[in-house]
């Protein structure tokens, strides 16, 4: 069956590292060279992941964060040196964009060290884990999302956020305590 050169069917995809679900490095290279159909396919592959991450880190600004992150990713695509490392780079750009938008849209929740107790009165109405996550300070929310939802190691989280691994460890500790307290209240 004919299909455009850059439009590979799933069965033809080369083996990629485990951290590159569904992203074909050859397609990334074609996209970097200005192949619009490769860019279109890459957007299909990255869009849902970027959207999910933004919805968890910046639930009040998920649409804006998704668009801004994807714009930054596609604008910066030609400068990506290692196509096989695209997911690490995409994650980092997305997380940083989502954090910035979360802080703009929800400064009270976003404030560093904001005690979760402040929101205790509204916790009765929580329906699921995402609701609890949304009420954590952004700095705690993001490390918990990356650790529990994306399964990243502390070192990978540190790389994505550009902070020391020790800081990630202490934030995770505080985030888990705050989450547990909110969940059990």
């Amino acid at each position, binding site marked *: 069956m004919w299909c455009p050169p850059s*439009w590979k069917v799933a069965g033809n995809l080369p083996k990629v590292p485990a951290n590159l679900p569904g992203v074909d490095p050859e397609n990334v290279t074609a996209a970097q060279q200005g192949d*619009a159909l490769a860019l279109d396919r890459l957007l299909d592959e990255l869009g849902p992941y970027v959207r999910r991450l933004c919805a*968890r880190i910046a639930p009040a600004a998920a649409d804006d964060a998704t668009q801004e992150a994807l714009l930054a990713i596609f604008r910066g695509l030609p400068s990506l040196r290692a196509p096989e490392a695209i997911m690490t780079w995409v994650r980092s750009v997305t997380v940083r964009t989502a954090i910035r938008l979360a802080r703009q849209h929800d400064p009270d929740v976003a404030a560093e060290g904001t005690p979760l107790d402040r929101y205790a009165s509204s916790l009765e109405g929580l329906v699921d884990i995402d609701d609890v996550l949304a009420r954590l300070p952004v700095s705690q929310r993001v490390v918990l999302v990356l650790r529990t939802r994306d399964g990243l190691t502390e070192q990978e989280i540190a790389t994505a956020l550009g902070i020391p691994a020790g800081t990630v460890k202490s934030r995770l500790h505080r985030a888990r305590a705050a989450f547990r307290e909110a969940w059990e209240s």
Partner: protein
Amino acid sequence: MNDPMTPPGIDPIDRLAILAAALPGAVVRQRRIAAPFDAVWGVIADMEHATPRYEPGVARVRVIEQHGELLRLLVEDTAGREETMDARLRPGWCIMQSPTTVIAFAARRLGNETLLAHLEHRRVPTPMPRRSESHYRRAVSTKIDRELLAIEMIASQDTN
């Protein structure tokens, strides 16, 4: 932990802005068209008949292969030159590419009207002085604006 709902797809107009961000020099213009989405998109999707009516440089378009959303087109310009284009077409989103050119359309429903965006991009940039570059962008913007107006007229005629 539970997963959130399946995330909604990216709006076509937003998608076009993202595509343009990756294509340096791409020109994008948009127009609020006084015709319903189905009528406007009917014009874009009818490549063989409608394209020569709004694109002054195109004499003929023929769909030579189609597999779902993916098409291969043979495009003949008014000078008689032929070029093959690969395309993807679905409601609200159309992207066409040859070795030298990228053309894309995106549409969003606005009640009984339609927001239509149109991108044009040269894949093989010709080095030119900054002044010529801005002149080129103005010329392409004017061309796209005329095409959007022509599409509005065709869509309105087809609706009436």
